[in-house]
């Protein structure tokens, strides 16, 4: 253990103390969720202090667990405070939001497919989200969900090829790259559109 690690540890512990004290004092529930999220960053900081490749790999699951707990608690908060209101039509009309989505979404999705993999999925999803934001959402989201599920299965299947038949690694890379593209795109394009639609 070198000195930098000990110093970093002390800083994080100070942060933990401050965060927990703030949570103890805070009475507003929404503010407490936000403070809790801040405190979770300190857990990631503790992992990051290890400063090895393994620590880098451990941050992702830590982050995912933190986000999923945050989502769960936020949902409980929404239900608790009865904050669900049906979405209303946009109050104003913008011309470009009706003409641009088609071509923009096409370009982004095409570029995403060329990139492939996780990055490509994210780029293509931005195109899809832009389209849904502008044109409204009357699509069958159940179908997108199903496609995402099958893509996930292909992705996992590719990992089994890596493990069991390593000689066919190129085939597995192609499957994994394509499947993660579809999966990320499908999942991300559902952001902000699932709640309260008529096909949900």
């Amino acid at each position, binding site marked *: 253990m070198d000195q930098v690690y000990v110093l970093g540890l002390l800083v994080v512990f100070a942060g933990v103390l401050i965060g927990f004290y703030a949570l103890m004092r805070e009475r507003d529930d929404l503010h407490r969720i936000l403070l*809790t999220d801040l405190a979770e960053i300190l*857990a990631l900081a*503790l992992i990051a202090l290890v400063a090895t490749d393994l620590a880098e790999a451990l941050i992702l699951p830590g982050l995912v667990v933190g986000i999923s707990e945050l989502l769960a608690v936020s949902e409980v908060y929404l239900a608790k405070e009865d904050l669900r209101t049906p979405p209303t039509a946009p109050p104003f009309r913008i011309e470009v939001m009706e003409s641009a989505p088609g071509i923009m979404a096409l370009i982004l999705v095409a570029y995403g497919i060329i990139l492939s993999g996780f990055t490509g999925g994210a780029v293509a999803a931005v195109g899809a989200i832009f389209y849904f934001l502008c044109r409204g959402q009357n699509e069958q989201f159940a179908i997108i969900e199903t496609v995402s599920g099958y893509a996930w299965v292909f992705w996992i299947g590719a990992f089994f090829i890596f493990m069991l038949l390593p000689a066919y690694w190129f085939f597995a890379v192609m499957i994994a790259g394509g499947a993660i593209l579809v999966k990320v795109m499908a999942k991300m394009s559902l952001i902000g559109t699932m709640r309260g639609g008529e096909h949900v």
Partner: protein
Amino acid sequence: MFNLPVTNIGGSELFVLEFGDIVNYFSVYTAALFAFALIFTALAIVSRPEKMVDIAFGGDAYYTKEIDPGLLRFQRFMAIACGLATLGAVVSGDVFNFTLFVSMVGITNIGIVAAYKNKHVLNAAFQYGIVAMLATVPLFGGAAIVLATTGTLSLWELYTAAVAVPLIAKIFLVLGVMGEGMAPFYIAKAEITRAQGAPFILMVHVSSLLVFLRVVEIVISM
């Protein structure tokens, strides 16, 4: 090839499940916990939930409560997920995997409790969720300190006498598990257990008990 270095708590290993460098093990102790979790997961899968009956005080009147099948379906799903997470946590041979499974137990416990739409129960679920989220700080912190000081996360290495795990890491691990699995000990326990769906609520208690027993084994053996 694999010999469990410490056998005074868990007994010698019965079966080893190897995933690359992550080696799960079933000792007498963890196999017993595993069997217990398996039984309750099976119960959550096959059981028919009870219907609540309220009796009016001071009279013969009673009324049954309406239970939304959708909510029960969600509760059953969460109970099964909780059982699977517990199964993973009790046989894990890796500290970080153990912490991940424990936090998954925490998330699913929130889900089980929060499935019931009652202001008081939701309030209790919210408070529990805040505690469970905060508990990830010592939980992952403990695993990270173990990694930083010993250079490994494998319990097979950590159980050997040559590797010394600092006390603070052990304390952090126990604190984290206390936070994640605290639903049965929570001050609003009455509110939580008042939620309907007896076999599913039971999973909250079983999972917490099992991960507690497991963390005791890990901390003492380390």
